[in-house]
């Protein structure tokens, strides 16, 4: 028994902690190098010193031009698209170039990565709309309710009364979209935090975190660089977050101005 306890102590007190520490060190170093690799990949190995030729005023104009060019490109699409202008803190839903809905937001965060993009490369990448490659959230994108046709008028009346009894669900709206497998945009509701700890929200966050850990684990074991996606997180009121999520087409387009 004593030997057994001693073995357990060695395993859980020394061996496993050492493995964990080794894993953390490897994971962190691979992640750090993946950020640099991603910066270089995006900048196509353009040397940073090249940017010295561009004044900040010019860079602002480059950003503005790229944004307008991308919106114009997006207007060719038939579906509802979205434009996000971090400079003016404005988010819009657009269709065929017509602004359907606009909202000003006051709170947002974005990765430092975006400061690393060379102006020429910025103009190249951001003058085209990004395509949504994945979109998911705490609420259903299209809340279809299935109803079986009633056999007679009595059953029909019962269906009507049961539908009327449906109470409004408390939900916390949070969603994210991956753009061209390159940029991750998170939209989170502000204000009332009711429903934040409810199962749909917890499940959504857990799923995302488990996915990140799984991918990280696979890559670390193979000594491969981790997947790094620069992120933008925008906080808007619940109803707005819901409208944008439901309106944006599944493979819709998104225009960004950083």
């Amino acid at each position, binding site marked *: 028994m004593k030997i057994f306890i001693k073995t357990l102590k060695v395993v859980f007190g020394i061996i496993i*902690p050492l493995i*964990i*520490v080794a894993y*953390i060190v490897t994971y962190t170093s691979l*992640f750090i190098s993946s*950020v*640099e690799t991603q*910066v270089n990949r995006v900048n196509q190995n353009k040397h940073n*010193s090249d*940017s*010295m030729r*561009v*004044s*900040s*005023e*010019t*860079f602002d*104009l*480059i950003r*503005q*031009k790229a944004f*307008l*060019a991308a919106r*114009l490109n997006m*207007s060719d699409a*038939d579906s*509802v698209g979205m434009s996000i202008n971090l400079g003016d803190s404005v988010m819009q*839903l657009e*269709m*065929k*170039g*017509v*602004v*359907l*809905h606009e909202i000003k937001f006051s709170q947002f965060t974005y*990765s*430092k*990565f975006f400061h*690393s*993009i060379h102006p020429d490369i910025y103009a190249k990448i951001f003058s085209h709309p990004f395509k949504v490659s994945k979109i998911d959230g705490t609420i259903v994108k*299209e809340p*279809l*309710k*299935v*109803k079986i*046709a*009633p056999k*007679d*008028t*009595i059953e*029909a009346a019962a269906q009507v009364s049961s539908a009327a009894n449906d109470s409004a669900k408390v939900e916390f709206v949070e969603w994210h979209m991956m753009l061209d497998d390159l940029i991750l945009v998170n939209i989170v509701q502000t204000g009332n935090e009711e429903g934040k700890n409810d199962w749909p929200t917890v499940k959504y966050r857990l799923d995302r*975190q488990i996915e*990140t*850990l799984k991918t990280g684990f696979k890559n670390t074991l193979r000594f491969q660089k981790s997947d*790094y996606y620069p992120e933008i997180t925008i906080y808007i009121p619940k*109803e707005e977050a*819901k*409208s944008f999520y*439901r*309106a944006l087409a599944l493979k819709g387009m998104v225009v960004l101005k950083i």
Partner: protein
Amino acid sequence: MDNSADKISGSVEWEIPPIQKKKTFLGRLFSFKVLWTILIILLYVFTIPFLLFAVPVISERFAPETQISHKDGQNDKQIAKLKSDISVLNKKIAKLTPGNVYLVINTTENKFYLYENKKIIREGLCSTGSLISLIGEGDKKWIFKTPRGDHKVRGKITNPVWHKPDWAFIEEGLPVPPAGDPSRFERNVLGDYALVLGDGYMIHGTLYQRFIGMPVTHGCVRMGDADLDVVWHKMDVGSKVYIY
């Protein structure tokens, strides 16, 4: 002779008791064993949060930042060119928005916005598709959804008559009458006006004004009487309707 002093010194054997260090609370806390245990517990507890949240933040600190210098006068030509390009693009985008009257409908919030000369002239609540998928006999299926996209007003009707489709009977548990049967035509249920969008979809009024603002329709857009009056009179055949 009194030799008691010798007796005492000879008989007493000094025993030095073992030094017992009384450990203080801090001493116990910082003993190697306890410290190690705390470290191990912290490692087990914080590894996952560290990997998920701290590593990305730490990594970003290593991202190189593009240095941008401000050099006056050197980019004048480039700036002028960019400004002219931006002005051209702005004009092109502005042209895409109709200058006359158009309607925007938000199906998530069940709201409408009527624009004229690119400004909102009226906004309010409406009702859109219930998103019910009705399954009938023989796997027949209807989805009551307002079609998203850009539409045009294809016709304007006063005192519209509802030509009830099959699903209207199936949904109520009634037998489906043959085409052209008088029971298929219902008057005074769609309000005073209707704007035809095509494919059977319309913007019309309703008897059930209390449901305005809720997703309860079979795909059409319902409006309150006063709003419908304004929208119907403002919009012409060919006016744009954007539904999202």
